């Protein structure tokens, strides 16, 4: 309900040219929620990953977003997305060690506001998919709140939870064995060749391949619609 109100408020700002066009196209697209009976084969999924300076939702910043679309079981390379986010005061320490990005790369990226607006324009009303999706969505939501007074309105699938659900059933306690559902571990388990770890686009591509296999596994357990996938 709060979502409806936020969308409506955003759209009325759009009419007063108060928001960038990409954001407005996004709001138009998500105005109507996805019907639960929609077949998975008809949905455009956007598998994405964010790269951040750390794991503190309040202090840390997004330095890149990578994404790739998956429709009807096919990962579509032509429908992919990658943006580097310019962050002036990011120390070399975190970024270089974890992400392999150099400071000059980060300094040469888009500014935060444009980057996140471009991402919204790219995802439209797709169902979002990410590994440990909660964190990435929260990071983006914080930017959206600050710049546009909105948040992500799309349905979201977390591949770690989905894998756990398909392998162990919905009530398995993930907290105790977090290691079993890390992206590396999952890729290994599903025979996906690891490469380009720790760039957002590389991880998004790996996550997309993982999701492809989870979808196939899900079909076998009768998960064929948006409602079944999102447990709504």
């Amino acid at each position, binding site marked *: 309900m709060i979502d409806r109100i936020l969308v409506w408020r955003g759209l009325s700002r759009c009419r007063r040219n108060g928001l960038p066009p990409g954001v407005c196209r996004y709001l138009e697209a998500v105005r109507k929620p996805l019907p639960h009976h929609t077949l998975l084969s008809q949905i455009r999924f956007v598998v994405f990953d964010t790269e951040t300076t750390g794991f503190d939702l309040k202090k840390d910043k997004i330095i890149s977003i*990578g*994404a*790739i679309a998956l429709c009807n*079981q*096919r*990962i*579509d*390379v*032509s*429908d*992919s*997305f*990658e943006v580097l986010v310019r962050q002036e005061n990011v120390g070399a320490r975190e970024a270089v060690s974890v992400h392999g990005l150099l400071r000059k790369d980060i300094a040469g990226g888009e500014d935060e506001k444009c980057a996140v607006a471009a991402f919204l324009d790219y995802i439209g009303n797709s169902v979002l998919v990410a590994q440990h999706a909660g964190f990435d969505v929260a990071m983006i939501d914080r930017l959206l709140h600050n710049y546009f007074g909105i948040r992500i309105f799309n349905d979201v699938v977390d591949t770690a939870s989905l894998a756990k659900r398909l392998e162990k059933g919905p009530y398995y306690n993930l907290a105790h064995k977090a290691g079993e559902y890390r992206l590396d571990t999952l890729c290994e388990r599903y*025979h996906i*060749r690891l*490469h*380009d770890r720790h*760039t957002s*686009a*590389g991880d*998004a*591509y790996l996550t997309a*391949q993982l999701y*492809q*296999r989870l979808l*196939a596994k899900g079909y076998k357990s009768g998960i064929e619609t948006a409602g079944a996938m999102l447990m709504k």
Partner: protein
Amino acid sequence: MPSNTIVERVAADLSQYPPFDLLEAAVLLDLASSIAIHYHEEGEVIFNKGDELRQAAFMVMKGAVRLFDTIDGEEVLVDLCDEGDIFGVLAIFGGSTYVLSAHVAEESLVYEMPAEKIRSLISADSAVSMFFAGEFAKSMQVMERTLTTAFDQRRLRYSEQSCRNFLAHETLEVKPVTNIITCSPDITIREAAKIMSDSNIGSILVVSPQNHPLGIITDTDLRKKVVAQPGSIKERPVHEIMSSPVYTITGGKTVADMVMLMVKTKLRHFCITADGTVDSPLEGIISEHDIITSEGNNPAVIMKQIMAAEKVDQLKNERDKAENLLQIYLNQDVAVHFISSIITEINDALIVKAIVFSTADMRREGRQMPDIPFCWLSLGSEGRKEQLLRTDQDNALLYADVPAGREDEVHGYFLELGGRVTSMLQQVGFSKCPAEVMASNDQWCQSLSAWKKYFSRWILNPEPKALMHSTIFFDFRPVHGDAGLAAELKRSIFDEITKGRGFLEFFAKNALQNPPPLSFFRNFLVEKSRDHANEFDIKARAMMPLSDAARVLAYELRIPDYLSTAERFRKLAELLPPEKDLCLEAASAYEFLMRLRVVNGIEQHSAGRYIKPESLNKIERQMLRNVFSTIGQVQKTLNLRFQLDYIRD
């Protein structure tokens, strides 16, 4: 704008396999950015026979896909595709429905490439277009220039590296000497010798007033024909001692051409004239020295050493050198027909030398050669000029019919000669034939009439098993002695064959004994029978079916020349216009197989017959798959031509 990171990742995956390994970076990235990646579980259907074509071609990136036809409700396996294999390319070339079904054999990741993208690549890049022409023919299951294109592609693939190594040598043009010293035919030998010594040259060309080459005088001529002769002939005109005519050629010859020419003609000087004949003005001269100094390791040198050899162990040395040369040529990707002609010339020279040594030895022991012409025959692969590695000896001796009463004397002499030559060849490194098919065997050292009788028996009473063992005799080739005897034998074989038509059918049937495998899958050979083997017998499964087929057709069409399998197929292409393309493909296929076998043989220090599929790279596997389909087509043609289905047991 698609993600660079992902596009580059996909491009890197694509570039592991042909034809994408040859694409320029920008083109490859553009293709990668258009790819869709599909995951399939075992048993899933990608498409079925009769389905409408999808606007894409597919490439297996991981896993395996089974392609099969359905005939009368029964599945007929056509291919098993593994990593890097491309299938479903019909969409690129038009058509409306799939002619095969593609089902997932094990969990697979399949790249879909938009047909439109591939089409534009094909029009822009010749390597890609040739590659897909091959893939297309495969998927249509029709033979449409598959191999010719595939081999062109291979040439392209290797041209870069071989040019770098090889252009520096063999494909370089030999620069003729153009400031030639000449003289007229009327000057005296003494004057000519003075010019030569004044100009410090080893030879002088004798020319007509129009500057047409008439002959040549070399240091050797002066030494042998003048100095060594009694009496004074120095005042005689030069035309009396010159070597004439001279061998003339046109300009622009490469080192490889010249080496071949030297080996063949055993000459040391070649004149370049305006039109390549003796009736046009002289433009330059190329001497042995020019050729040798333009390249170090040289068959002509080996040849010369063989000719000059005085002892058997020298021959062995030269044959060892020839083996090194073979390896150099293989590394440099020199055409197989060139390599095999060189090696054949060298082997032949060794045989001739062994015969010369043996007759001389016998003469010294007081055994004179009878005044009966004889001919030394090479059989089997040596007879077909295809022996690259030193394998077993297969030879025979043929002598003219002997006047009554002298049979034992003549037979005794030649049998002794055969024995000496074969054991000498053994010392040189050609091991004995285990089946004793050699001129040292009483049975295979015979008069012309006896040989005619052998063939007549094989032809008129063809018995499958005996026939199989006699095929090597049908590849006989005269190496030394009176070639007229061999020609006479061949004529009589043709006559016998006309009398007994059934023979060719048996012969053809023999060529169909071994159907080719389908293809390779990982480290297995995929068979129609589905008994997958992990070793590939290149001789029995690929080379023999082709050489058997070429032999049958060569005898059916009465080709009198002594040809190799590839040469037979090229000749057949002229004689059988409807089968022209197939014959040319078969010729290329056979040469490809020869190279593969010899490379494998050198690596394994064996005859190269058994090949481990894991030692083959992707392009070799794809080439072999095309070769298999050519063999299948050749067998089908043979089957139809001789209507063998009627006599199949």
